[in-house]
């Protein structure tokens, strides 16, 4: 069963110029992205910075209004399209999708104690009794393995990892079914990263959560995700199971990304694929396949014809004209 189905999602940001603020152009941050997430799985959304992965996650949370497309979300046995709902009608569904933020320092209000931060979603959603709230906050702190005695502390007294645990507890407060984690460990020390990732996996098992995991660190992705979706300049280039995509990528961009994964063996010679030129400008993308100016397998067709995302094998979608002929290198 799909918890979330995103169909042809687009988000354009207008570029305004001049005194009258006329629209002079558009940044196509997300340009026709489709994917789905099954219940209980983790889909990793990867790509370099500026590729639109954060915009996709913000649109799903409706922190940003999408320009076009559908966001079908399965809740209480029915399916609603979050993209079309006005803000007010959205409210009852908000609690089912929660977010874990990248920066554990700016995501907690420094003027509130932990009990209030975690309890706020409860209070807003109708848990008026303070006693009841404290009980639930205690439960949540226990879930993320923080001592309940920390309840009255302010965020400044916590380390980055502990703050991220608080952020996770807040996200869990309303029993959400989908959690959007926007690079939840990239701001943490490597030693703490593993703890937080394992906590997330553990919670997924216990609570049956579904994750959309936005990341750029492929070693992290390999550890946590069931499937991987790769984005490049606002478009999806490849979606496949984690093991498949790491073993044999089908898109040249994915291959280049995977070649950048550090291998823990000093004797191995680095075989990194260095991409020439800069990443395309989403306000003025190249015609055809967005990746063709940097692609070492590009042919004439790639410059004019935009490849569609097609299923090349069961459960493997690639948008590349040469997906069938190329034999690309993965990692072991």
């Amino acid at each position, binding site marked *: 069963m799909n918890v979330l189905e995103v169909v042809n999602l687009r988000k354009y940001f207008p570029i305004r110029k001049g005194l009258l603020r006329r629209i002079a152009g558009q940044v196509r941050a997300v340009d026709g992205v489709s994917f789905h997430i099954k219940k209980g799985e983790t889909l990793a959304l990867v790509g370099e910075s500026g590729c639109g992965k954060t915009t996709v996650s913000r649109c799903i949370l409706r922190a940003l209004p999408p320009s076009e497309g559908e966001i079908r979300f399965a809740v209480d046995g029915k399916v609603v399209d979050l993209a079309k709902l006005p803000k007010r009608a959205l409210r009852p569904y908000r609690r089912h999708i929660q977010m874990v933020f990248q920066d554990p320092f700016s995501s907690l209000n420094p003027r509130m104690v932990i009990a209030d931060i975690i309890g706020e979603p409860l209070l807003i959603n109708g848990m008026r009794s303070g006693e009841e709230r404290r009980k639930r906050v205690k439960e949540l702190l226990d879930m993320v393995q923080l001592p309940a005695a920390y309840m009255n*502390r302010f965020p400044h007294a916590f380390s980055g990892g502990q703050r991220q645990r608080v952020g996770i507890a807040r996200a869990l407060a309303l029993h959400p079914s989908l959690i959007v984690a926007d690079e939840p460990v990239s701001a943490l020390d490597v030693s703490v990263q593993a703890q937080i990732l394992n906590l997330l996996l553990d919670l997924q098992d216990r609570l049956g959560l579904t994750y959309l995991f936005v990341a750029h660190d492929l070693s992290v992705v390999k550890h946590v995700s069931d499937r991987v979706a790769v984005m490049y300049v606002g478009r999806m280039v490849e979606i496949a199971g984690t093991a498949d995509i790491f073993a044999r990528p089908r898109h040249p961009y994915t291959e280049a990304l995977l070649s950048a994964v550090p291998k823990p063996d000093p004797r191995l010679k680095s075989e990194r694929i260095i991409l020439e030129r800069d990443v395309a400008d989403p306000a003025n993308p190249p015609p055809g396949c967005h990746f063709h100016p940097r692609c070492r397998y590009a042919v004439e067709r790639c410059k004019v014809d935009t490849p569609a995302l097609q299923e090349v094998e069961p459960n493997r979608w690639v948008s590349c004209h040469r997906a069938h002929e190329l034999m690309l290198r993965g990692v072991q």
Partner: protein
Amino acid sequence: MIARLFGRTSRADSASAEERFAVASQLQLTWWRFRRHKLALASGVIVILFYLVAAFADFLAVNDPQDTDSRRSFAPPQVISLFDDDGSFRPYVTVIRARRDPRTFRMVFDQSSKVYLTMFTPGYNYTLFGLFETNIHLLGLKDPQPGDGLYLLGTDRLGRDLWSRMMVATRVSLTIGLAGVIISLFLGILLGGISAIYGGVVDMAIQRTIEIIRSMPTIPLWMGLAAALPSDWSVMQIYFAITVIIALLAWTDLARVVRGKFLSLREEDFVTAAELAGAGQLRIIFRHMLPSFLSHIIAATSLALPAMIISETSLSFLGLGLRPPAISWGILLQDAQNIEALALAPWLLMAAVPVIVIILAFNFLGDGLRDAADPYG
């Protein structure tokens, strides 16, 4: 960090200190940090003292500040001697007797008899805080003869006591600043907030208005506005009008600070988190955004106050602001404008001292507050 905040801590209570730090609120952290800034702390004390003077101006005054007497015009300051001839602690002043030199027609002051000082003595009538009618003053002469007077800082051309006038001027000048800041704070938060929340055309209109106001040279503008005040207005009416004029030009800074803070806080993750939890607009503004920039507003206010005080002083000095019989620092300095007064009575320049002291104090205080306002930065 913790040890720095608490100063010396022994090993035994470092654990409890850590606990205290962990549950310390924003206000406490700010205070702990502010406390370490000694200059700001001293400035804070000075500012408080000045406002105490403003509150008890009449009590601290010795003579009626409006009481004129041509026989003692330009009387020099008297020096308080703390110890009597026999060495006992008995403060006294040598009172002056004025007579006109028959040849030069100038006033000559003979320092003659010793008069002892007492405290809490009856003097002229006034109402404390506008409520209690009383005539008790901090200092006074013990059994004065007719013609004796206590002039700690001398007198001006009309023989009015400079010390008493400075006390009353402090009240006027400081409250004008305070009232002006309150008005501009209100305007600044309101318009800055509207500008940030609504954006678009509204934001555009407000920001361009601010730019136009800021691009006008202030002195000619004040002159124009002050000249527009009807000349038959009472002292009180002029006082309020001047306050409003100063405030109308000063709100722009605060409006920009507020707008900037709103815009930057709106992008903060914790605001997004509250939004995702389903919090309404009002809750987000009052529970999350306002507390976060309140400290900045307080700091901005303490930096805006001296500008207000300077504005009033310079306006009055130029004769555009308050007019006699009102008393303010600017009006006192007006008396020190001409070379004759300076040559004959240099003590009239004393009125500049409180202006300089309070401006410096406010600036140091504002700096300290601004630094302490963000304990996480």
